């Protein structure tokens, strides 16, 4: 996979051949069925632990959902009219999906999603606290877009992986997720294999994470997944993907470079923690935390 090759962990070449044992133990690789939507955190955490994936119904109320939807499509349209890059993401295979970056700068609703109490509760239980927001981006699949590249989000952690997930995604369905419009395809249970998929795994059986708009789909960072193919003629499918990690990892986005000052000034303590503005020990700036 391109993204993996780019990482080039030359220094780790003398570690054991990663995942060989896990691969042998997997037998026929296929997804378990998608768990039924749940409505309480305890059930969500059980699914996350056992299946690596959970679906939470009605996680976002209609008013914030409508606001997020407006903001997402407006941001995508702004990018298009201003000639900003929307395509070329390494895990997309064609130019039909639109990626929307720097969501926190676009509308406060995306800050609300990043620190949504439900997401924070799942993150705290899965990764511990403090955790970091590594990245938050939008993905709008377009008609005719092919499926993306199968990957796990802790792509940057050298194998063999330790026994716990190092990150998690709490995806927000801004539109309905359907089999036809590019619902994220997941390999439920693949966290137990504890390795990255290789090109040989490209045809593993996945399931589309179908869920109505306003649902949250959380999956831990060892879960194999990809953007689904959008086989519709005229439907788009928008979603917000906040990715969180334990605090030892460098974030995918350099918030200190990219965040608008106004966003930082307005951020809650929870959001500032997620963005690594709260520090201690070695991270202090002449004895004080940056915020």
């Amino acid at each position, binding site marked *: 996979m391109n*993204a993996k090759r*780019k*990482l*080039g*962990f*030359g*220094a*780790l070449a*003398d*570690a*054991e051949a990663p995942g060989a044992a896990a691969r042998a133990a997997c037998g026929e690789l296929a997804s378990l069925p998608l768990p039924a939507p749940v409505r309480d955190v305890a059930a969500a955490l059980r699914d996350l632990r056992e299946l690596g994936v959970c679906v939470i119904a009605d996680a976002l109320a209609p008013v914030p959902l409508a606001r997020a939807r407006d903001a997402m499509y407006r941001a995508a349209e702004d*990018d298009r009219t*201003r*000639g*900003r*890059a929307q395509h070329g*993401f*390494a*895990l997309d295979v064609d130019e039909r999906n639109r990626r929307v*970056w*720097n969501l926190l*700068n676009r509308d406060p609703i995306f800050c609300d999603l990043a620190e949504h109490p439900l997401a924070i509760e799942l993150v705290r239980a899965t990764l511990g606290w403090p955790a*970091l927001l*590594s*990245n938050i*981006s939008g993905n709008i699949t377009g008609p005719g877009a092919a499926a993306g590249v199968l990957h796990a989000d802790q*792509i*940057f*952690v*050298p194998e*063999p992986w*330790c*026994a*716990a997930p*190092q990150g998690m995604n709490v995806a927000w369905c801004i539109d309905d997720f359907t089999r036809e419009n590019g619902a994220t395809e997941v390999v439920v249970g693949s966290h137990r294999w504890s390795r990255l998929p290789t090109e040989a795994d490209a045809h593993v059986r996945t399931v589309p994470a179908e869920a109505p708009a306003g649902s949250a789909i959380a999956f831990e960072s060892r879960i194999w997944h990809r953007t689904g193919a959008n086989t519709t003629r005229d439907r788009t499918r928008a979603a917000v993907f906040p990715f969180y990690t334990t*605090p*030892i*990892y*460098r*974030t*995918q*986005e*350099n918030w*200190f*470079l*990219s965040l608008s000052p106004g966003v930082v000034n307005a951020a809650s303590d929870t959001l500032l923690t997620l963005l*690594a*503005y709260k*520090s201690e*020990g*070695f*991270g*202090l*700036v*002449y*004895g*004080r935390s*940056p915020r």
Partner: protein
Amino acid sequence: MRSTPDGELARALEELRKSGVAVIEGVLSTREARDARAALVAAARESERRGAATFMPELDPNDANVRVFNLLDLHAIFRDVIVHPVALALVRGLLGEHFAISNFTANIARPGSRSMSIHSDQALVAPEPWLAPWSMNVIWCLDDVTAENGGTLYLPGSQRFTQRAALPSDPLAQMRPFTAPCGSIVAMDGRVWHTSGANVTRDAERALLFGYYSVDFLRPQTNFNVNLSDATKAQLSPELFTLLGLGPSGNTRVAGEVLGERPRPPEARA
């Protein structure tokens, strides 16, 4: 600063892989070491003036261990030292091409300073098992370092411990101090278990600079985006700018693009 012959580098890397620690002598001339030491004393004063304590109770048992943080913001000499070709050759040799500068701090052990607790830098943050080096120190000796004046105690070969359970019951008994003349650098694998030595002399100070580097998917110990002043940032070479994580490139090199912009190299902003 002198260059180091390839053969000497190769020998140091071999020693680093074997015992976890390697010394290269004479990387700084006597005069360069003296200048760096004077800069360190000035930096300690300036850092205190800006509000940072030089005593860290969570690290050291008493205030005879003087800690100075954020060296890169305090004196230009440290911005040269951190990218010294010999240091970077050792880092590339152990960590590979994709590394970042994680921190650059100093520790002056004054008479009466005592050991901190035993640790490995990598074990402090990274989950077990530790199968590869994810970080390393390049330590600059600004005084002669001896067993008596606080030479770092380390457990030779402990970079092979993949988990905490591999530690012997009394690691201190098997530890030994590294000794090196002023002007040397000491490279240490981030997995090596170590502690600062106690300074039991009556009057000898022992100043060390700790250049700390890690693989670039790890969060640096210090956040240079907020620790460096704009004036300092404007003076950085493009290489240093990137190694300090000031650009948009995150840990995967597949995301983290800054909206509609390419990274601005420092010379374009000066």
